[in-house]
């Protein structure tokens, strides 16, 4: 958006600590964004503990556990890609980033099948099947779709972010001496991961 002549020293002058600080502040806002939803979840679970327990039985724990493993692995490959670039192994770093993206796609495909299976059973917002259930179950599935949906949106954003990083690594904009962007993308990816770590037990394991 900006021109090179228009930019000031703050651009030319690199401040990795500053960039990382900005990223952490952004992550705080993301945590609070999800925090609001976790708060709503805890209030309703407190209000309807039994309905939540029953509704959770409808979820496929094995698929959820599998997806957890996929995301955890992707966090590892992301971290490895940063280590690789620190050691000046450009190709390895790119491969690790591509694996991360692949795992993210894998996660989403899995999620897609999970959601469509629910749809086939008639469980989706506003469906007759769901509305015939009690308030607690309506709320549980409402939160399930919204929270995993918003998380899925973050996975997509993260994928794009990593794809941009891969391109930058290939063009040697991200190098051994200047990898703060990749690090920040990694931080974002770990956030996406850690949110899932909380979503998984709260929705799948309370049955």
């Amino acid at each position, binding site marked *: 958006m*900006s021109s090179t002549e228009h930019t*000031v020293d703050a*651009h030319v002058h690199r*401040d990795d*600590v500053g960039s990382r600080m900005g990223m952490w502040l952004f992550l705080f*806002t993301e945590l*609070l964004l999800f925090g*609001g939803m976790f708060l709503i979840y805890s209030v309703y679970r407190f209000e309807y503990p039994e309905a939540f327990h029953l509704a959770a039985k409808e979820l496929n724990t094995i698929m959820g556990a599998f997806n957890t493993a996929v995301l955890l692995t992707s966090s590892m490959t992301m971290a490895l890609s940063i280590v690789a670039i620190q050691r000046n192994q450009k190709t390895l770093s790119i491969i690790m980033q591509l694996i991360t993206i692949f795992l993210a796609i894998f996660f989403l495909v899995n999620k897609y099948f999970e959601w469509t299976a629910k749809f086939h059973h008639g469980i989706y917002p*506003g469906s007759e099947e769901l509305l015939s259930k009690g308030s607690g179950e309506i*709320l549980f599935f409402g939160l399930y779709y919204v929270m995993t949906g918003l998380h899925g949106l973050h996975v997509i954003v993260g994928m794009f972010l990593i794809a941009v990083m891969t391109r930058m690594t290939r063009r040697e904009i991200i190098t051994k001496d200047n990898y703060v962007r990749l690090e920040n993308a990694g931080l974002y990816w770990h956030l996406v991961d850690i949110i899932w770590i909380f979503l998984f037990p709260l929705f799948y394991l309370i049955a």
Partner: protein
Amino acid sequence: MAVESATIKSNGHEPSYLEYKGKHTGLLGWILSTDHKRIGILYLVSLSIFFLVGVTFGVLMRLELIAPGETIMDAQTYNSIFTLHGVIMIFLFVVPGLPAVFGNFVLPILIGAKDVAFPRINLMSWYMYVIGGLLAVVSILLPGGPADTGWTFYIPYSVRTNTNVMLALFAAFTLGFSSILTGLNFVTTVHRLRAPGMTWFKMPLSVWSLYSTAWVQVLATPIIGITLLLVAIERWLGVGIFDPALGGDPILYQHLFWIYSHPAVYIMILPAMGVVSEIIPVFSRRTIFGYKFIAFSSVAIALFGSLVWAHHMFTVGMSNTGQFIFSLLTMLVAIPSAIKVFNWVATLYKGSIELATPMLFVLAFIFLFTIGGLTGVMQGILTVDIQVHDTYFIVAHFHYVMFGGTGFGFFAALHYWFPKMFGRMYNRKLAKVAFWFLFVGFNVLYFPMFIMGWLGMPRRYYDYLPEFEPYQFLSTIGSWILVTGLLMMIYNLYHSVKKGEVVTEKNIWGGETLEWQIDTPPIHENFLDIPKIETDPYQYKGNEEVLEKEEVS
């Protein structure tokens, strides 16, 4: 602020930021600029336009209320107008107001930096602001009509009404994002870009208040973001979250709404307090009294202010313990605010006060904010709150704080930094006349609302009982006086940007902070060389010595 004079060079050849030519020229040179000063001006222009729209709605509301019954609009229109007035004034004027305009313009200069930490994100936040503003305006024009929920979007009405609530929600969401980006930028800027030697306690006080504000922006705004998003999802897809028909809890919505919207009140007022702390020492020629107390009270306000939200909800049904705790915390918040007021007054004491326009606005701020603040404490008392809840008393209270406080603080800042921003001076006499119109009009407009509220006039009603007629009439007259003052002020400033008396003097007010040591208007990168800071801000030694001698004799 004493700085090695040699470090702040100006060769007089460097073009000012207004004349600076980058890759783009003309309008593009502005809307694609990442210069924090130009972004500040962009905000000033767009903010003023939305402010005028908000004022127009306000005046129309007052006109409707001049007599009982339908005067110029029907009830539905009135509902939409007060909603738009609220949404525009809160999300497009008072929340972004001081940080986005003056924070952008002076914060980097005050800490001796060449720009903010993330200049491109800074520009992006302006675009988000404009998009959010346009969404709000578009909602007026589209079929369905503007939202009629009030700026609070309370459930369940906000999921049931057929008006364009979605657009208003997305507008508020986008504006929230813009606010977060500004906050994120300022926190990082203050941490990373202070000039060498500028320790935390050598920062000017407005930097402290902008810094505290920025933290609240970063930490509180996401909550409203997700809450409004959930309302939108609920409207759009019928997902059960807050709607009681689907088992949801509308009071939970109110909690989440106020978890942001109460701290937001401090996002609005803190920067104005910073401006006051900046202007008072300059126009009373005294070192600020109780620097550390003012600095820490900003942080304390940000902290306590985040824990008092439920005092907006004393009548919705809450446990007695909850009410007691929130009532207590509400009163505690008054302490740091009072600390500030006492320190300002102590700074004025024995100062050689110059009643220039910025100082007039600041004194009005202290007066109006004290009234607004003390009535706020009244509402924090549970028994009183049940009497005045949702009455004009509340309306009067928050207009005293938000308009009398933040609004007047904004005008003070505008008159204070105007010559630095544009290198021109406004007509000082006209500015003072406009001030008096604003001050008198303000009180005539809002003070009767305290009385009406105490007598039981509910807010947001488009009609009223005949006994309120004299007060309503007086209040409407007040709105005309206020608008006359506003128009005078705007004419004066607008006219002076191009035709005002040229100012080249660096330090027109005799200020001690860094912005008064650089060129007027500043050069593109503010400083040729980053200054070295050696002493505290606000050094008015000469004056202090005279005072001490007087004391001795």
